[in-house]
């Protein structure tokens, strides 16, 4: 076996702490190595061409590239090897950057380590077996989880490209948090006007199967071949019969029993309700917890007034399974409720701001509802406690964000912009009102963003005070906001009528459960992990699952929409070919050695191990052995470690390859 070793300097990322020429020279005499070169940028075109030339010139059988992590350029070098005529699985990567040069600073010892890593890779490649990628059929249907603006955009893009989409939304209507907003920065478009047409487009799209008030329960299978189980919660209203006339809502006797979560607990809703007037689908839902029928079996007012007999109290949850090829997760975010937290929770909450104690201390979404024309105060600024028009409003930035000790350490990115918008909306409607904003740093990095904030300050006279607020307390109807003006260098006290807190954007409550259901990684805050922070921000590490919107990290509407279209594009790339090439890393059984104990079958998480009967010449079954269905096997290798006699091995990581790596140390 003739092996080529190619050491990359990666500019000076590797070259600085690993003496690449010495590594190349040291590997020259390794048994089996025919050529060993180093070059400044192995992954660049000249670098790859050099590899190809060496392979062709010296008729190499396998190559080892000492460069960055295989997660970065394994595919690149495998493609180069294929162009030069070598099987892609006779290429091994020695991770000299992330695992060596970047993490050590003593040149001698890190060069020695680099030599060891390359020698391990050389010994492994000697035992690599040429493999061909497995072809797997692709179900050309997409599942979009979450019906906010990101989910809507992704669903429309995929559907318009001609493929079927299943859009699953937990709430009774799609629209997500954007539908709660009054107007959006930086253009002050009314959010309903730009969102509702999109929602209707989704509802009427022939290729989008909209499943609202439903949740994903189970996801099985793998890229291109997912089987998704969805629970369609019972609305107690027959969707086909109901025309959305709303008579039942007006006639329902339970008025003040439950808050409308869409109105952020500023308004009540009856037992049968539609979250907001422009809801899509415009079909109400009956809330069993407060509906009189479920309490004492009487009532039934809605049944009487409903001309279409659409009410069905005994409707049960429906379980639907869908065959899916690509999954786009767009489950969005939640605002951080900053009142008292349970003792064991790491987050402390902000008791000193009186949120939850004083009615007029509200968070961003509540202010949006107050400012929104379809909100509880139909657009007029009335404070929740006594409905008076607030003459002095204080906005506080970074409540919970950028706060390691009491909240979350990250910046929630959009609060600077929506707070400027809030202040501007307030000044437009209450001309003689005063708006103060306590801030640390204004982060307005988008297109026309900073001009927007400047406009709020210069034209609308919003007073920005750089400093933190220490305490808020109520004094004869006024809210004393005590803070500090770090520029003037003195404490500040404002007697405000209303206070708006720009609280942190956090992951949804059940984000980690959904991640475990789908099988995608998530970080310590519950945001989903992208495959690579810079180069693969849309894909999750799990094949076939793409991320869109704030579920991946806090972001504003333009970014969410862009990310949604990108996720849609990724799904369409997947559907580009009928067959999907899959890594041939699957298990294979040596049937003559298998003793048929089937421990492998017990540990296989994908049920990829089947019982195969072995017949003798005259057809009598004399033995049962394990058989691996390469379509289902995902190559985890748990079976190989459980098999006592090592009769099952994993292609790409078989016993010899691992033994060689250990022995090469």
């Amino acid at each position, binding site marked *: 076996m003739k092996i080529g070793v190619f050491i990359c300097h990666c500019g000076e990322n590797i070259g600085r702490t690993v003496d690449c020429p010495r590594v190349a020279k*040291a590997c020259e005499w390794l048994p089996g190595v025919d050529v060993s070169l180093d070059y400044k940028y192995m992954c660049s075109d000249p670098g790859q061409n050099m590899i190809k030339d060496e392979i062709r010139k010296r008729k190499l059988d396998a190559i080892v590239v000492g460069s960055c992590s295989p997660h970065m350029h394994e595919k690149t070098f495998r493609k180069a090897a294929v162009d030069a005529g070598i099987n892609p699985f006779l290429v091994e990567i020695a991770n000299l950057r992330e695992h060596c040069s970047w993490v050590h600073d003593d040149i001698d010892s890190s060069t020695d380590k680099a030599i060891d890593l390359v020698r391990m890779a050389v*010994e492994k490649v000697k035992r690599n077996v040429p493999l061909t990628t497995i072809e797997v059929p692709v179900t050309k249907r997409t599942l979009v989880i979450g019906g906010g603006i990101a989910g809507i955009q992704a669903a429309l893009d995929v559907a318009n490209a001609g493929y079927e989409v299943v859009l699953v939304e937990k709430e009774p209507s799609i629209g997500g948090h954007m539908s709660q907003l009054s107007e959006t920065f930086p253009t002050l478009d009314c959010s309903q006007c730009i969102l509702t047409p999109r929602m209707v487009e989704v509802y009427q799209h022939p290729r989008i199967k909209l499943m609202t008030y439903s949740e994903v329960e189970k996801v099985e299978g793998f890229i291109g071949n997912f089987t998704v189980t969805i629970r369609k919660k019972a609305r107690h209203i027959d969707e086909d019969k109901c025309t959305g006339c709303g008579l039942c809502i007006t006639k329902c006797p339970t008025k003040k029993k439950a808050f409308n979560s869409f109105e952020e607990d500023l308004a009540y809703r009856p037992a049968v309700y539609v979250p907001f007037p422009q809801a899509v689908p415009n079909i109400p839902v009956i809330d069993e917890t407060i509906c009189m029928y479920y309490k004492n079996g009487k009532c039934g007012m809605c049944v009487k007034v409903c001309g279409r007999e659409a009410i069905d109290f005994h409707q049960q949850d429906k379980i639907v399974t869908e065959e899916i090829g690509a999954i786009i997760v767009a489950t969005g975010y939640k605002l951080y409720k900053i009142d008292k937290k349970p003792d064991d929770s790491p987050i402390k909450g902000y008791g000193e701001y009186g949120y939850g104690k004083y009615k007029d201390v509200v968070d961003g979404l509540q202010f949006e509802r107050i400012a929104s024309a379809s909100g509880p105060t139909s657009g007029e600024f009335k404070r929740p406690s006594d409905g008076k028009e607030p003459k002095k409003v204080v906005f506080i930035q970074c409540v919970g964000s950028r706060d390691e000790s009491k909240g979350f350490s990250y910046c929630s990115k959009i609060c600077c912009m929506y707070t400027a918008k809030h202040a501007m909306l307030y000044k437009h409607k209450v001309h003689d009102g005063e708006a103060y904003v306590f801030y640390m740093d204004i982060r307005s990095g988008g297109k026309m963003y900073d001009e927007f904030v400047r406009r709020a300050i210069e034209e609308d006279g919003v007073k920005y005070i750089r400093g933190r607020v220490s305490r808020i307390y109520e004094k004869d109807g006024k809210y004393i906001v005590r803070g500090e003006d770090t520029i003037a260098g003195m404490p500040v006290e404002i007697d405000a009528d209303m206070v708006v807190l720009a609280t942190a954007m956090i992951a949804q409550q059940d984000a980690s459960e959904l991640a475990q259901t789908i099988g995608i990684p998530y970080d310590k805050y519950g945001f989903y992990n992208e495959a690579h922070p810079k180069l693969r921000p849309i894909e999750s590490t799990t094949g076939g699952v793409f991320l869109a919107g704030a579920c991946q990290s806090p972001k504003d509407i333009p970014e969410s929409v862009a990310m949604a279209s990108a996720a849609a594009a990724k799904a369409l790339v997947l559907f580009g070919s009928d067959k999907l090439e899959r890594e041939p890393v699957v298990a294979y059984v040596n049937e003559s050695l298998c003793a048929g104990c089937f421990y492998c079958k017990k540990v296989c998480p994908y049920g990829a191990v089947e019982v195969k009967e072995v017949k003798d010449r005259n057809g009598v079954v004399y033995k049962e052995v394990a058989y691996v269905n390469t379509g289902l096997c995902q190559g985890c290798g748990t079976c190989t470690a*459980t098999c006592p006699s090592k009769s099952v091995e994993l292609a790409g990581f078989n016993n010899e390859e691992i033994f060689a790596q250990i022995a090469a140390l």
Partner: protein
Amino acid sequence: MKEQNWEPKIIAFVCNWCTYTGADLAGTSRLKYPTNVKLIRVMCSGGIDPVFILKAFERGADGILVSGCHPNDCHYNAGNFHARRRWTFFHELLDYLGIDKNRLQFSWVSASEGKKFVDVVSKVVNDVKAMGPFKGYEELNNEFMTEFPDVSGVDESMILKEKEGEAV
């Protein structure tokens, strides 16, 4: 090998999805840790077999780390659960046979825990350095060399061991 500047040789069997990526993150964040550790990548911590550990000790490893995804985070959703039960037995057996607990350590490191990977690795290196060379297996190996000087080459002929500049 002289006692003072003796550098332990540590092998880490790591799973591809979590700990290997966590180590990459430690790289991209330029966190520093000792050079003693060399990683062997497998697809899942469920695929790491105790015979790997024995062979690593035989090949002169002074300490071994086995690391995978946190429970419930496994890319193949059950690999690390099987591993956890397997290692409880194997670790108990090695301990019973007189191999110090800290020679073979286990950890869960996720893809976003670059810092934790560095802490775990440094802890293993320091623990092993405190324990000194792995006398038990060294005696076995030396005995092996002296008893059958001529045979030594035959059995391991597949892998030539002369390493450039390795002080024996």
